[in-house]
C-alpha cells in the first residue's frame, strides 16, 4: 500500500500573544503605573495614560472538559470583552475595561460554580501535577489531593487574611514537578523498589538505569541466568529515580508510598533570596479519595502561620524569625533524625554558632 502523503509541520513555535491580548493591555503595554486590590479576586491596574483595567481571577477544576471551557468562554463573552488569560497556578483571569461589569461577572462565575479569589494574601490555588490520571510514574493522584484540599481551603482562597500570599504545591513523585511552595505535599517512598526480574532484560537499558541512581545502589546482576539488576538495599534512599527509565523497578507501593510535607519554598527575591522548601512532616498515609491526614497537617501549619506571622512574612520569613524549635513547638509536629540533612552540602544547614532558642 502506498504511504499516505504526510503533511509537513509548520514550525511556528510559540505564538504571538498580542493577537489575543485585551486591547487595553496592548494599548498600555509597558506603560502601567500602579494597581490596587478592591476586593479579593479583583485587581485594578492603572496605566500612565489614565486607563484602568479590572481583572477578575477565578479558580477552576484545572482539568477542564470542553463543556466547562466553553462555559468559561461564554462568561467571558458576556462580561469581559472576550479576552482571558491563565495564571501560572491555572486560575482563569478575565480583563474588563468597564467597572460596571465586575460585579455581574463575579455573580455569573459563582453561579456557575467557579471560585473568585486567589489574589493578594490568600491561599492561592494549589499548583498541581498529573498523578494517576495521566503520569506514568505517580505515587498518588495530584488532582484528587488538590480537589480535596481546596474544598477545605476555599475560604482562605476567597479571602485575603493571611500574613502574605501562600503558595501550596503537590507532587506525586520525588521528581517534584510541583516545584517549590510555601507548603508542599509530596510523595515520599519509604521502601526500595521491588524488581520484576522477568521484565528487566527485555525492557530496560541497564547501564542508563545504573547511571540514574543518585547513590550508586544499582548493580547489574544475573537471575535465573538472565541479565537483570539488583539494588543494594542498605544504600538505597528510596527516591524512585530508577523507576522512570526502568518500569520493572517497582517503587510505588500502596502501603509504603507515603506523603511528606515541606515548607518555606519561596521563588521571590522580596526581602530575602529565593529559598528551597524544608522537610517538616512525613509518614503521612497516601489515602484516597480525600487524603484527610495530609489536609489536617496543612491546615494546622496554616493556622500557626496565620496567628503568629507578621504582615508580609511569607512562611520562610516567619520561620527565619521565630526559628525551627518554635516552629515545631507551635505546630506540634515531631522533630526527628530525618529532619537533619545528610545530602551533599548538608553542613551548611547545621547550626555552627551558640545561637539557640531555649
Amino acid at each position, binding site marked *: 500500500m502506498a504511504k499516505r502523503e504526510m503533511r509537513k*509541520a509548520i514550525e511556528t513555535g510559540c505564538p504571538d500573544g498580542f493577537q489575543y491580548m485585551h486591547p487595553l493591555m496592548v494599548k498600555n503595554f509597558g506603560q502601567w503605573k500602579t494597581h490596587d486590590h478592591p476586593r479579593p479576586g479583583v485587581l485594578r491596574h492603572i496605566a500612565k495614560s489614565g486607563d484602568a483595567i479590572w481583572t477578575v481571577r477565578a479558580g477552576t477544576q484545572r482539568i477542564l472538559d470542553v463543556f466547562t471551557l466553553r462555559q468559561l468562554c461564554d462568561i467571558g463573552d458576556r462580561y469581559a470583552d472576550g*479576552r482571558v488569560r491563565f495564571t501560572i497556578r*491555572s486560575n482563569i483571569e478575565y*480583563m474588563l475595561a468597564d467597572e460596571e461589569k465586575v460585579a455581574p461577572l463575579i455573580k455569573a462565575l459563582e453561579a456557575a460554580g467557579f471560585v473568585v479569589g486567589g489574589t493578594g494574601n490568600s491561599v492561592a490555588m494549589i499548583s498541581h501535577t498529573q498523578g494517576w*490520571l495521566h503520569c506514568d510514574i505517580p*505515587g498518588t493522584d495530584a488532582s484528587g489531593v488538590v480537589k480535596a484540599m481546596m474544598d477545605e481551603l476555599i475560604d482562605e482562597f476567597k479571602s485575603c487574611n493571611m500574613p502574605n500570599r501562600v503558595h501550596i504545591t503537590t507532587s506525586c513523585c520525588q*521528581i517534584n514537578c510541583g516545584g517549590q511552595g510555601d507548603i508542599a505535599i509530596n510523595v515520599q517512598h519509604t521502601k526500595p523498589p521491588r524488581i520484576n526480574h522477568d521484565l528487566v532484560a527485555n525492557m530496560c537499558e541497564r547501564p542508563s538505569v545504573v547511571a540514574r541512581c543518585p547513590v550508586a545502589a544499582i548493580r547489574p546482576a544475573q537471575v535465573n541466568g538472565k541479565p537483570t539488576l539488583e539494588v543494594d538495599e542498605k544504600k538505597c534512599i528510596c527516591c524512585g529515580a530508577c523507576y522512570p527509565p526502568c518500569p520493572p523497578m517497582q517503587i510505588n507501593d500502596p502501603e509504603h508510598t507515603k506523603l511528606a510535607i515541606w515548607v518555606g519554598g519561596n521563588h521571590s527575591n522580596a526581602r530575602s533570596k529565593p529559598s528551597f522548601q524544608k522537610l517538616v512532616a512525613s509518614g503521612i498515609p497516601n489515602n484516597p479519595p480525600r487524603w484527610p491526614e495530609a489536609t489536617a497537617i496543612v491546615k494546622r501549619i496554616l493556622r500557626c502561620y496565620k496567628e503568629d506571622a507578621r504582615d508580609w512574612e511569607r512562611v520562610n520569613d516567619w520561620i527565619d524569625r521565630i526559628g525551627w524549635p518554635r516552629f515545631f513547638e507551635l505546630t506540634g509536629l515531631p522533630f526527628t533524625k530525618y529532619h537533619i540533612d545528610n545530602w551533599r552540602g548538608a553542613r551548611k544547614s547545621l547550626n555552627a554558632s551558640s545561637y539557640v532558642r531555649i
Partner: protein
Amino acid sequence: MSDEKKHATPMLDELENGPWPSFVSGIKNLRDGHPSGRVNDMANDLLGQLEHSYETRKGYWKGGTVSVYGYGGGIIPRFSEVGQQFPESKEFHTLRVQPPAGHHYSTDILRQLADSWEKWGSGLVTFHGQTGNIMFIGATTENTQKFFDEINDYGFDLGGAGPCVRTSQSCVGSARCEQSCANEHKIHRMLVNNFTDDVHRPALPYKFKFKISGCPNDCMSAIERSDFAVIGTWRNEIVIEQDQWKKYVDKKGRQHVIDNIITRCPTKCMSLKNDDTLEIDDRNCVKCMHCLNVVPSALSPGEDRGVSVLIGGKRTLKIGDLMGTVIVPFMKLDTESDYERLVELAESSIDFWAENGLEHERCGEMIERIGLVNFLDGIGVEVDPNMIDHPRESSYVRMDGWDEEAIKWFEQKRDQSLAAAGSPFGNNTTD
C-alpha cells in the same frame, strides 16, 4: 450510554462532594453529555481506570513512542497497562502545545481549540502544565497526528518533551504589571523560537527550560525552575513619588512603615526622614522588590532598565535542588542587537552544555561538576563579583595565574570606563 456499561466509581464520586469545582464531574459530563459516542466511551473507561488506581493506590500508564510526522517530541505517549479492562482509553496520549506568550487567549481561539479537540481527542484539557504547555490530555496514536495537523494550520505548534529545549513561560509583565522592567513577551518568543529545531528534535543531554519574569518578584519561579532565567531589573534610582509616599505614611502610621518596610529591606538601605519623606541609598538596593510591592502607589522601578540572567536552576533529580546563579548581572535590552546578544548567550550556553554535559545531566549539574569558572570560560563570559555570595573559603586551589588575572580585571575595568558603547554584558554606563 446505558447504566450497566458505566463503570462504578464510588471513590471518585467522593471527589464530587465539596465546594471546589470537581474534575470528576467534568469527566462524567463528557461520558454522559457529549454527542460523540467515542468521547463518551473514552471518558467512561478513563474513569474506570482512575477508579482502579484509587482502589489499588497505583498508576497504570506506561510510556512508549509516539510522535507526529517530522518531529521527535511534543507528545507524552500513554498506553494503559490495564487496557483489556478499559479498552476505549487504552491509548491516551497528551499533546503538549505551546501557548501564546503571556498565556493570553481570546474566547474565539479557545472555542476553536475546543472544537478541534473534541473532534479528535478526549475533550479534556489543562491550561497549563507545570512547564507552561497547554496539555491536551487523551488522544489515540492515530488521532494525535490529525489533531496536530488541524491546530498547526491555525498557528499552534508542539512544545518539547524529552531531552530538548522545552516550552517557555513568561509572566503577564508589561501587558498589565507596573513592576515589569522588560518586554517579557519579546524575550520569551525570541529565545524559544530561536531553538524551534531543538524543541522538536530532542538531541540534548537533557531538558533545557527558559523562563522569563519581568521583575525580581519572579512570578514564573524562573530562578528555581529554569535552566536559563531572565529577570527584569533596573540599575538607577527607585522612582519615589514623595507626595504619595507621605500619604501612605499618613494613612498607615510611622510604626507600620518602619515595621513593614524600612526594617524589612534586606540591605537596610531605606530611611524614613523626620519629615516623613523616604530616602533610599540606591547603591545598596539589591532590587528585591519588597518596598515596591508594599507601596506601588509611591514607588516604581528605576527607568534605566534591563535584565539579569541566571543559569542552572532545576529540581531534585539527580544531585539535589539547584537555584540558577548569576551569569549576567545586568544587560540592557533596548536595541535589536541587545536582544541578539541575549540569544547568542543562550546559544553558547546550550552549545557548551550539549558538548560537555553527560547524558541526563542538567546544565546546572554540569556547572556543579566542572565549576562555574570552566563554564564561564566555555561561553566566553568574564567573572564578576555579582556571581558569588562570597569569595572562596578554602585555600586548596592552585593560583599561579594570579598576576595575569589581576591585570585582566584592571584592563576590563579600564575598558568599561573608556568604552562609550560598553561591553556586551552590562556595566556599560551610557546606552
